[in-house]
């Protein structure tokens, strides 16, 4: 591998321990999506973003800055980089996304809030205490640092008396539902993806959308959390015909995203292969994970346009003023 695995994993772990995220972003970037929604802080049911959608434009800004420097967006981090990173948040200095890029991803939690309100669910949010789940470090095998982080996240939920957590992406869903309970005794949270809840509450649109889309299942939703039927039920519910690729449902094909932090070239190749399969079916694609969304969209070459599933569902709602 072209970069120092030691320092890369070390920096990510240091950041998670001391800054509560692998890529610390400004507090405003975490909470900006909720401006004007007047959502209460905390409560028995909370909508929890895990910062996943908000992080993507910052990661992409880093990618743009660092692509010329090496094989990875972390390539410029050497041993010296890790030392400096203890005192200065290097990543935050290196990449700042445009307001337009931020807005593209901030729309998703806003969409989800709107959809949940449509089915009559009452919920709060945790604002700046809506922390990253630690998913990347868990994937990299850094269980000690992630389990310590999980305990801190759980204490936040306890502080607000949270009993039910609504998640908006597969990785946070998996961490909070299937990984944290392994480490935290008497784990009491009920964790559900908003897609499961919308299906459970029988979401119906204000008006049909119509059209044809091809669906890309997230590996984590489909194979880790068995969330397969719900997205299809919801897409059909807004009047969309769903085209299934060869690799679909529990046999879905990875977008390549999980390899990007260490092997971006391999990640891109996997994404192109997936896009080739999806683009044969439709020029409109549906994703349900921010990592899938950004990786597939980068590999399209204009053949297919991907949108997050929440955008498709919100297209069936009456416009707000």
């Amino acid at each position, binding site marked *: 591998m072209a970069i120092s695995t030691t320092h890369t994993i070390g920096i990510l772990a240091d950041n998670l321990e001391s800054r509560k995220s692998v890529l610390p972003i400004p507090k405003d970037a975490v909470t900006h999506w909720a401006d004007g929604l007047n959502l209460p802080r905390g409560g028995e049911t909370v909508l929890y973003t895990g910062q996943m959608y908000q992080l993507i434009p910052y990661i992409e800004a880093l990618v743009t800055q660092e692509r010329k420097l090496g094989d990875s967006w972390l390539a410029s981090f050497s041993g010296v980089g890790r030392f400096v990173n203890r005192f200065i948040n290097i990543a935050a200095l290196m990449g700042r996304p445009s307001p337009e890029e931020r807005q593209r991803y901030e729309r998703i939690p806003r969409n989800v809030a709107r959809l949940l309100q449509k089915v009559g669910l009452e919920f709060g949010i945790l604002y700046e205490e809506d922390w990253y789940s630690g998913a990347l470090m868990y994937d990299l*095998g850094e269980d000690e640092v992630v389990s310590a982080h999980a305990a801190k996240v759980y204490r936040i939920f306890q502080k607000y008396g949270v009993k039910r957590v609504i998640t908006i992406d597969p990785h946070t869903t998996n961490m909070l539902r299937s990984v944290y309970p392994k480490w935290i005794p008497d784990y009491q949270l009920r964790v559900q993806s908003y897609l499961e809840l919308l299906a459970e509450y029988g979401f119906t649109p204000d008006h049909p959308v119509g059209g044809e889309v091809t669906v890309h299942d997230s590996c984590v939703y489909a*194979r880790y959390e068995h969330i397969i039927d719900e997205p299809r039920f919801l897409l059909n519910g807004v009047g969309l015909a769903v085209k299934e690729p060869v690799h679909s449902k*529990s046999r879905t094909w990875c977008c*390549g995203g999980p*390899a990007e932090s260490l*092997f971006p070239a391999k990640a891109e190749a996997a994404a192109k292969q997936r896009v080739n399969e999806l683009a044969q079916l439709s020029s409109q694609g549906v994703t349900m994970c921010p990592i899938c969304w950004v990786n597939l969209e980068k590999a399209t070459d204009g053949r297919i346009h991907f949108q997050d599933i929440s955008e498709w569902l919100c297209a069936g709602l009456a416009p707000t003023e």
Partner: protein
Amino acid sequence: MATLVNPNLIDQVKQSDAFNAAACMNCGICTAVCPMGIEHLPRELFRYVLLGLEEDLLAHRDAVYSCLLCRLCEVNCPAEVHIAGNVRTLRHYLNQAVFHVKRMPRARKATTG
């Protein structure tokens, strides 16, 4: 060149009972379906661990970190090996025992504050 065998490798790698590489019957379906086309993962790597061939494991560490943990191999595995979990366990071992990824003192202090 002599091959060094570390008979304790499997015990060093295992962090829980979840590492079930011994169930692998080396059929190769995992390799055939891998989206990343990783030839050495997972069956050969698991075999290295079981046989104590630490040098061979280290020589193919890129494969360990390239894995997407997508579990396409797992849903196709006839022996129901926890392949993604096993790969994560190998990463944990490599981080700690080989790469010596350690926490920085300031970061450790911050967690207790």
